[in-house]
């Protein structure tokens, strides 16, 4: 058994040292997932595993046997852009584009966490069943994804607009 990446089964690497990130980038040539620090500090390598966001640089590929991985290449449907991808363009939520795939995958995973009522560092009431949807919640929850060009305002605008208009987004498969 291997790993499912964007709906396709792929073999586990022979070398157990290979991170999920390097499997994607170097073996599968899915280089949309970026390597910014390779030590879990920047979020550029964020992918979705069974719908949850993880840092693929801190994940050994062999640990993900049987799991379903969605990368930026798998976010849009049938070649069309995901509404969040379109919103990033409209709101100029990037400059160089290097952190962008990680920001987008992270936001998709983050919205599901918010909908499940998972509290964040700034959530006032940890026992609340639903979390108020605010820019500060978005900003706090996206703070693990660094951007050095300074597109922060556009990124939050893009996320806020996408999910305000569409409060029940389709989860990435």
């Amino acid at each position, binding site marked *: 058994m291997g790993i499912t990446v964007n709906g396709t089964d792929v073999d586990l690497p022979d070398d157990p040292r290979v991170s999920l990130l390097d499997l994607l980038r170097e073996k599968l040539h899915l280089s949309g997932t970026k390597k910014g*620090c390779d030590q879990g500090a920047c979020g550029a390598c964020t992918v979705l595993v069974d719908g949850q966001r993880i840092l693929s640089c801190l994940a050994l590929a062999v640990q993900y046997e049987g799991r379903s991985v969605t990368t930026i290449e798998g976010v849009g449907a049938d070649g069309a852009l995901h509404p969040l991808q379109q919103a990033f363009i409209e709101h100029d939520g990037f400059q160089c584009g290097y952190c962008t795939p990680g920001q987008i995958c992270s936001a998709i995973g983050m919205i599901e966490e918010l909908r499940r009522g998972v509290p964040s560092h700034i959530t006032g009431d940890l026992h609340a069943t639903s979390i108020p949807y605010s820019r500060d919640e978005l900003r706090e929850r996206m703070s693990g994804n660094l951007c050095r060009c*300074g597109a922060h305002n556009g990124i939050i605008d893009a996320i806020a607009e996408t999910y305000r208009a569409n409060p029940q987004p389709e989860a990435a498969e």
Partner: protein
Amino acid sequence: MSIVDKGKEAAQGIAQSVMKKAVELAPGALLPGGRPDPLIRRQHGHIGKPVSRVDGPLKVRGAAPFAAEIALDGMVYAALAYSTIAKGRIVTLDTGAAEAAPGVVLVMTHRNAPRLNPPPRFLSGDKAAAGDDSPVMQDDRVRWNGEPIALVLAETQEQADHARSLIRVTYAEEPAATSLPTADGCEVGTFMGEPLRAVVGDADAAFAAAPHKVEAVYTTPGHNHNALEPHGATLVWRGDELFIHDATQAVAHTAWSMAQIFDLEEAQVHVSSPFVGGGFGAKGLWQHQILAAAAARLAGRPVRIALSREGVYRIVGGRSPTEQRVALGADADGRLTAIIHRGVTPKTRHSPMPEPFILPTQSAYAAKTFALEVQTCYLDMVANTFMRAPGEAVGTVALECAMDELAEQLGMDPVELRILNEPEKDPLSGRPFSSRNIVAAYRAGAQRFGWERRNPVPRSRREGDWLVGMGCATATYPYHRMPGGAARITLDAAGHARIDVAAHEMGMGTATTHTQVAADRLGLPLEAVTVRYGDSSLPGVILAGGSQQTASVGLSVMMAHQELVGELLKLAGNDSPLAGLGADEVECADAGLRKLDEPGRFESYASILARSGRSELVVEGSAPMPLETMHWSMHSHGAMFCEVRVNAITGETRVSRFLGSFDCGRILNPKTAASQFRGGIIMGLGLALMEETQFDGRNGRIMNRNLSDYHLPVHLDVPEIEVIWTDIPDPHAPMGARGIGEIGITGTGAAVANAIHNATGRRVREFPITLDKLL
């Protein structure tokens, strides 16, 4: 003289006379008496529209290929081992275990590296690119803590990284200068050939006699660029030709410099860099490209070198720390009588770059006397380099905090103090300003920000545990345009134009903005224009640095466009409605040429080309020398406003509001320009509150060489930042536009510090202003 030499001489003579004629004929659009760029007048074109990025769809899909993502057949992976001492010699270097490790193809050290010429140091020649001109793995010497001492090539990155860990080295250490007290020598720094020193009158005497004065020392630490894309390259030798997929701000410079290092002709090196994951001054030629190319040659295999985050800190320089003393003297009305700005910054002997922190002070305020000086000391450390607004970013911290301190002493509003001291002409050079509307920027910014609600008495506004305050500061960055700009226009029979220019897209919006500008210049819809860039085979020597790329590309395309119009009129001939018209009687519109005052006399490009039997028309233009900066003092300007909330119990500072009001000439694309301004401001928030390269003064090693310990502003640190601009075109700049890429980081640090002072009453002069300094 041989016949060959005579031929050469004759050809040179012809070339010179052609050149002279070209200079005479050039319209001197940017010079005194010249006609400004006609695009400045155009109001209803693509310029000024918030066009979304043309490369946006590629980037949001992760489909834009970066340098370390190009796959080449037979490629091997590189890993570097770095020295752990600052200075000395390698005594033993045991590579046996590494060579025997699985998958290893090559271990390269100074013993087997090919002989290489030293890298041409940036600014030492027109196309010199290297941030450091130390020999690259040519001897047993160690020059800084972190210098590469070995490179491993292996079939996989994992194998290369493991083998690298098996290398054993011993050193004979020598005393090293790794902190200012142990620095080697101290002298007046030079920047772009000019000494960093300016004296007008007797500033010390004027300061001593001034009825109002402030004097203080401000320190800023080292900074690292930390572009999210670490430096990397994928390269291959094909015969004697070297092909480099690089992440660089200087494709043409890199190709020439690599040719010098490897004893090649410039045309034998091909550098491609269409996407760069952030640069900020750091993406130049450093040791990794050179080492990878040397190893690729030895191994006969293509090589990918992707620096680790630590690797970037070890071999790519950052901004140097500074210690700046500012003394301002003013008369009873608040007019400056003395501006003294002196200080010290370290550099290496192999770097072209003393941090020139007095630059912003040279043109900021009118004063009777000036004494400005940058002293440079030499340390054994990784070569320091250019980082976003070198000089201005940290120089404005000192100058603009001092202005705030002076305003407080005078009991004046800090905005009014600045406006009172606004110079009529450049205070040092005496040259007129090309366009300076900083007062308008201040007035508009103050009104929009609600500056009148600021209580001038520090620590007078408290909301619960939070102390709230406002501050302002001036932002400034010079207009640059470097020599060497050139561009090619290819117009095809279908009326599509392709612009070829060796420019760079690191996120500034280059591709998008120049599509807009070229479309307006050619009278074409956006869809009919393609801009090709990021390759050393394209025309021009154009650095993506000094906020000058837009001016350089814009003028190059303008010159090529003049050629194009001339050629089209020739091709149109006598059967065209345009017959008999000269280039200055026509304009480009509706995908063709038309007479300026008689729009009915029109012929489309497609028609002209079809009638002359041409499938395309190719023209090239070169930008003239940047003489406009000899006639005018040219700068982008801004007024920064900040509101902070400082926790009275924890000392935590949160920036709650920020507004940048800019005067940078015409804004070509408000969407991408706003991002450039915000990006600079956010890096300035980092400078103010958290960024610091921690340099171990005992051994010259950078301690926080990762993104966990070097703190950048993250989403929660960044408020919604408002940016506005005057949009007043500069008649002496191409398209009326001065640079916008760097000014955002200037003034921001001081605006934050001044707001913190207003909130808390605490004046922190040691940056960054971390919470411990507010307790």
